[in-house]
């Protein structure tokens, strides 16, 4: 069964053709679904021209809604492996194989990590690498998120906001049913995965720097969602570990 690339896209007519072409070249065996999140430009047309299946949302739902649409598509069509891929060219298609290999090895959720050093340090541990830079406020917030995830799950995840991820069939079905709707979805999705007893694996990947434009870094938005996520974490705290679903 071919794996499915889920590509959420909002106004990415400029970058999409090259991204889809490169993906087709490097990962020729995968199907592609592009989810246009209420794009006002030619995103959908451009994606269709490249041969991808296109899901056009009637209005902007945000990354969570776009991804969940992709998961619903994957679940409905019985895909056994799926991976999330960025429309702006930040993800390197050569690393897709590495993510899918971990799924084949039994992981449910594989996180392609920007910050994990490829060589483990010490007894099976991993340290944070450099090479991919983020802003200071965002770095601080991410640090607290990492701590929260570790407290709630017992597992250390270094890159909690990576959008380069692969999913097993049960993870696809779970996310098709329930996926966080708001900003910083990847952290909340991690918590959902741990809560549901899914096996989460983190593996280092190379990512390219963002080609154009700055990532949205407005402090107030970050602070608000940070507080919101803290509430989510507090309400998720549980004393027992759930059994892994079939």
């Amino acid at each position, binding site marked *: 069964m071919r794996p499915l690339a889920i590509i959420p896209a909002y106004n990415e007519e400029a970058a999409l053709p090259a991204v889809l072409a490169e993906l087709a070249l490097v990962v020729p065996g995968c199907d592609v679904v592009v989810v246009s999140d209420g794009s006002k430009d030619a995103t959908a047309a451009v994606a269709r021209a490249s041969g991808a299946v296109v899901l056009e949302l*009637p*209005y902007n739902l945000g990354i969570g809604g776009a991804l969940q649409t992709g998961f619903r598509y994957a679940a409905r069509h019985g895909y056994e492996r799926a991976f999330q891929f960025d429309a702006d060219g930040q993800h390197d298609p050569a690393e897709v194989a590495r993510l899918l290999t971990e799924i084949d090895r039994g992981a449910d959720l594989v996180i392609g990590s920007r910050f994990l050093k490829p060589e483990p340090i010490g007894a099976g541990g991993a340290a944070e690498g450099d090479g991919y830079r983020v802003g200071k406020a965002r770095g601080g917030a991410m640090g607290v998120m990492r701590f929260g995830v570790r407290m709630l799950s017992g597992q250390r995840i270094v890159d909690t906001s990576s959008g380069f991820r692969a999913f097993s069939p049960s993870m696809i079905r779970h996310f098709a049913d*329930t996926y966080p*709707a*708001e900003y910083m979805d990847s952290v909340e999705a991690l918590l959902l995965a741990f809560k549901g007893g899914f096996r989460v694996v983190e593996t280092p990947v190379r990512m390219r720097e963002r080609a154009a434009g700055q990532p949205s870094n407005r402090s107030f938005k970050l602070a608000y969602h940070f*507080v*919101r*996520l803290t*509430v*989510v974490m*507090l*309400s*998720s705290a549980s004393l027992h570990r759930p059994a892994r679903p079939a």
Partner: protein
Amino acid sequence: MSAYPAGGGSGLSGKAHVLAAAMSIASLVFILRAVRRRQLRAKYSLLWLSIGAAFVVMAAVPGVLDWTAHRLGVDYPPALLFIVGIIFLLLVAVHLSWEVSRLEERTRVLAEEVALLRSEMHRDPTP
């Protein structure tokens, strides 16, 4: 001439304080559980939780309401409680109105798109 009982705040006895603290904490737990069960989105819980936390503080620390009121120049401390409560409820009401407006707009778009899809279905019966 103060009508306040010794050691208490704003006319509450010690027993009442404990009861208020217990009820406040129960409300906080109730809200957190609703968020956990996804019955309440985390964003709506923020205002409620901050008010709940304020009530826990007021119940747990006798006199904090009186102290705050006198610092702010309010002679009758319960009035501060009412003012803050009213402002909070106004904020919640405004937030809900804003969300309802957003939902109405989105529902309208969905209805319009459904009409378009229906006509496409009739035109093109092959699945």
